[in-house]
């Protein structure tokens, strides 16, 4: 093997005056950065292995460790950046597709950060959520265009019967993360937090572990191209079903779960052999056009007696508006759209960083298109792909989403430090790993507490923002782009988002 041309990405700075050689860092690092030399009673670090997850620095009892970027400076070159060079070194060394975890980290514009919200002053009162009712309840599902009421002998009679729908106490759901890509404890934390918060979590394409069946009413069960873990009981247990066509981190390609993460338990849940790579196909092999999707939607509805909403998840791509229109007309109860920055456990870096469009633009385009076609009410819209804060939630809903999917934010709440190495199975935070030595680091009791805290805190902030705008129900914000203004956007972008520039009357 030739010389490894890669320099380390991080430096591990150890303050020797603080280090007591207790070896916590040695035990905590699954990447074997730290090593103890008993003879000299000193802990050494090999920073070439460091992924920057901060596990050691966070747990170091004497705060002796600091992780910093390794500043190996190349001759300045605006074109051949260090990242471009490192990718070439890696690729020429391995001959393989470069992988990444989590979402696109490239500096494309983040439109949420160019949107500003409105607030009431004088002419209509802002509403104080601490003293007045403030409603975040969100209902996901198909709606008819009208309600029919007849005058019967005993008063009004409702003739309209609504189809199945999901009721959320706040417009947030935990997005799809499979058992396999994340640990059982992480799945359990999500399920319990969803129940506690009155929202739903999503199985991803990993099937449902039998011990999680009791959280069925708070579970969205995914049916993806690999059909991993899909069986009648799985469909019957969940509150809703979701056909996964694509995801924001890797539009156009299938799922990748490295064999290292397919343990006995994962293999049983997914119904695949232990230790094999779980590669779901790029397309569903029974869906080659919209009418095939319609058949699958209705097959799932038939299988569950039309008692459960069936949604379709797609990645935000160039023609997302007509795609969403087709999905709505194919009979989906909701459409989940995952933007460019949506996360993943493993994706080819080149796909992750270069395919798709930002979720903000996708929401705006889809909402507008469905309205122009007069079918917006027929389908709910769930937006995901990097919702980082309650402000992003509010902005997404004002652009036209019914609710948002969060996953990266939920992982961060459980301890994730976004080192982007999920695909290695060596997650030091016990989240994106199946190694029992690592998974036990995530205590589900603490995980559920932190997740529920996050949902609660965001909900409180959403209420404050709503009240400031003079609204007391989340449905009055939906598609209400009058409450958004753009800063630092050109006219094309403002038009695409359907908003006015800040300063416009």
């Amino acid at each position: 093997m030739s010389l490894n041309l890669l320099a380390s990405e991080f430096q591990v700075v150890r303050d020797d005056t603080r280090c007591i050689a207790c070896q916590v860092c040695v035990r905590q690092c699954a990447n074997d950065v730290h090593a103890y030399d008993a003879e000299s009673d000193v802990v050494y670090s090999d920073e070439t292995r460091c992924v920057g997850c901060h596990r050691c620095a966070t747990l170091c009892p004497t705060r002796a460790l600091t992780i910093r970027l390794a500043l190996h400076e190349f001759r300045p070159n605006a074109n051949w950046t260090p990242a471009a060079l490192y990718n070439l070194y890696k690729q020429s060394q391995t001959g393989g597709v470069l992988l990444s975890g989590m979402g696109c980290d490239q500096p494309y514009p983040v439109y949420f950060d160019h949107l500003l919200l409105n607030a009431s002053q004088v002419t209509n009162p802002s509403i104080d959520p601490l003293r007045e009712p403030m409603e975040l309840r969100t209902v996901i599902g198909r709606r008819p265009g009208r309600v029919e009421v007849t005058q019967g002998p005993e008063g009004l009679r409702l003739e309209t019967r609504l189809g199945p729908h999901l009721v959320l106490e706040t417009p947030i759901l935990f997005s799809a993360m499979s058992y396999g890509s994340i640990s059982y404890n992480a799945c359990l934390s999500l399920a319990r937090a969803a129940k506690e918060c009155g929202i739903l979590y999503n199985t991803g394409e990993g099937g449902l572990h039998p011990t999680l069946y009791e959280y069925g009413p708070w579970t969205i069960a995914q049916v993806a191209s690999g059909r991993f873990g899909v069986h009648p009981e799985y469909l019957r247990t969940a509150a809703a079903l979701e056909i996964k066509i694509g995801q924001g981190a890797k539009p156009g390609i299938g799922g990748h779960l490295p064999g290292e993460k397919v343990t006995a338990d994962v293999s049983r849940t997914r119904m695949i052999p232990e230790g094999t790579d779980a590669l779901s196909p790029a397309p569903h092999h029974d869906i080659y056009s919209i009418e095939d999707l319609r058949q699958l939607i209705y097959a799932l509805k038939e299988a569950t007696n039309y008692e459960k909403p069936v949604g379709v998840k797609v990645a935000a791509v160039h023609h997302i508006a007509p795609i969403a229109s087709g999905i709505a007309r194919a009979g989906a109860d909701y459409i989940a759209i995952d933007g460019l920055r949506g996360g993943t456990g493993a994706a080819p870096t080149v796909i992750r960083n270069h395919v798709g469009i930002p979720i903000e633009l996708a929401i705006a385009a889809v909402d507008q298109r469905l309205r122009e076609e007069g079918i917006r009410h027929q389908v709910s819209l769930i937006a995901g792909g990097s919702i980082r804060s309650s402000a992003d939630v509010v902005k997404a809903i004002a652009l036209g989403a019914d609710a948002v999917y969060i996953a990266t934010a939920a992982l961060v709440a459980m301890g994730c430090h976004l080192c982007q190495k999920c695909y290695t199975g060596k997650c030091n935070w016990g989240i994106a790993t199946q190694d029992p030595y690592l998974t036990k680091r995530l205590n589900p009791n603490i995980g559920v507490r932190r997740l529920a805290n996050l949902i609660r805190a965001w909900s409180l902030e959403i209420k404050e923002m709503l009240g400031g705008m003079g609204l007391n129900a989340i449905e009055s914000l939906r598609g209400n782009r009058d409450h958004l203004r753009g800063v630092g956007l050109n006219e094309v972008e403002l038009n695409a988002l359907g908003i006015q520039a800040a300063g416009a009357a």
Partner: protein
Amino acid sequence: MCGLIGIMDTSGAYFSGHDIVAGIAAMEERGNGLGAGFAVYGCYPQYADCYAFHVMYPRPESRPQVETFLRQHFSIVYAEPVPHRNVPDLLCPPPIWRYFLRLPSFLQEERPGVDEAEYVVHKVMQVNTAGLGAYIYSSGKDLGVFKGVGHPGQIAEYFSVEEYSGYLWTAHTRFPTNTPGWWGGAHPFGLLDWTVVHNGEISSYGTNRRYLEMMGYRCTMQTDTEVITYAVDLLVRRHGLPVEVMARVLAAPLWSEIERMDEPERTLTRTLRQVYAPLLINGPFTVIIARHGEMIGLGDRIRLRPLTAATAGDRLYLASEEAPIRLLCPQPERVWTPLGGEPVVGRLRTPWSAQEVPLEAVSRYAYAM
């Protein structure tokens, strides 16, 4: 802040504009002279079966074009400028015409089964969105909206409002906050035989507007009130919902209240809230909504704008304050403050019909001709 008042005689007896002008003028504090208006039901008995279009021409040169359009799509029974007096302080009143229209005879042959109301709404929207600088702001049968930029007294004098008669009147004085004071932006807003006067600001405007646009309405008056007009038209006329059900959509009960309801009311209310979520009117508002035979007062669900109701004999009074009611009727039988979201509905004891116009009412109309 705005002021509004509505008076209805539920026996159908006609009364002049004197009371309504005095009533709205008594709430001077609630307006600032940037908009006032009146709606009267029963004012055109001679043309009771005709759609009475009031058309405002901020760009006067657009009139021939609009009239050509009206001739193409209607048969014009009579047309004239809306009579007015000279009120020196009024700033640039635009020319205003009224047209009494019937549907063209060829319509049923060319488009059998066409819904008459849909047809009229479509034509109104077509003119108002054409960018001509012409706005049809009153389009019902046997009713008229008279409005403009000025104090209520000035607008009343300008249009000689006191000389019209009707069995139902509403009026408005405006203190505009969110949109400029222009003649089209004054209240009442009218579409077919609906009129709406509104006090408040609709924070949910964007949501309401975009839903109504999806349903074929076009918002052209640069003000939030017209969404209420269109929402009411959609719910009551097009979807055939009773007025009380409509009120439950615009001022929907809280989810916590819905959960406490008994069946079947709970399912009905929950269904309404789910299906018509985009029509929840959120933000402070009081409205008086009227159509032939019916006057409805409604406030927002957490009552951020005032509404007082009173009855005296056959008369129902609705107003922003009790003062104008006491001015017109010192001893009402009952005065009360309706709860937020609870509609007050006045109805004619015998339903209104364009065909049964009392003959003596016709002579009252002689002035305008």
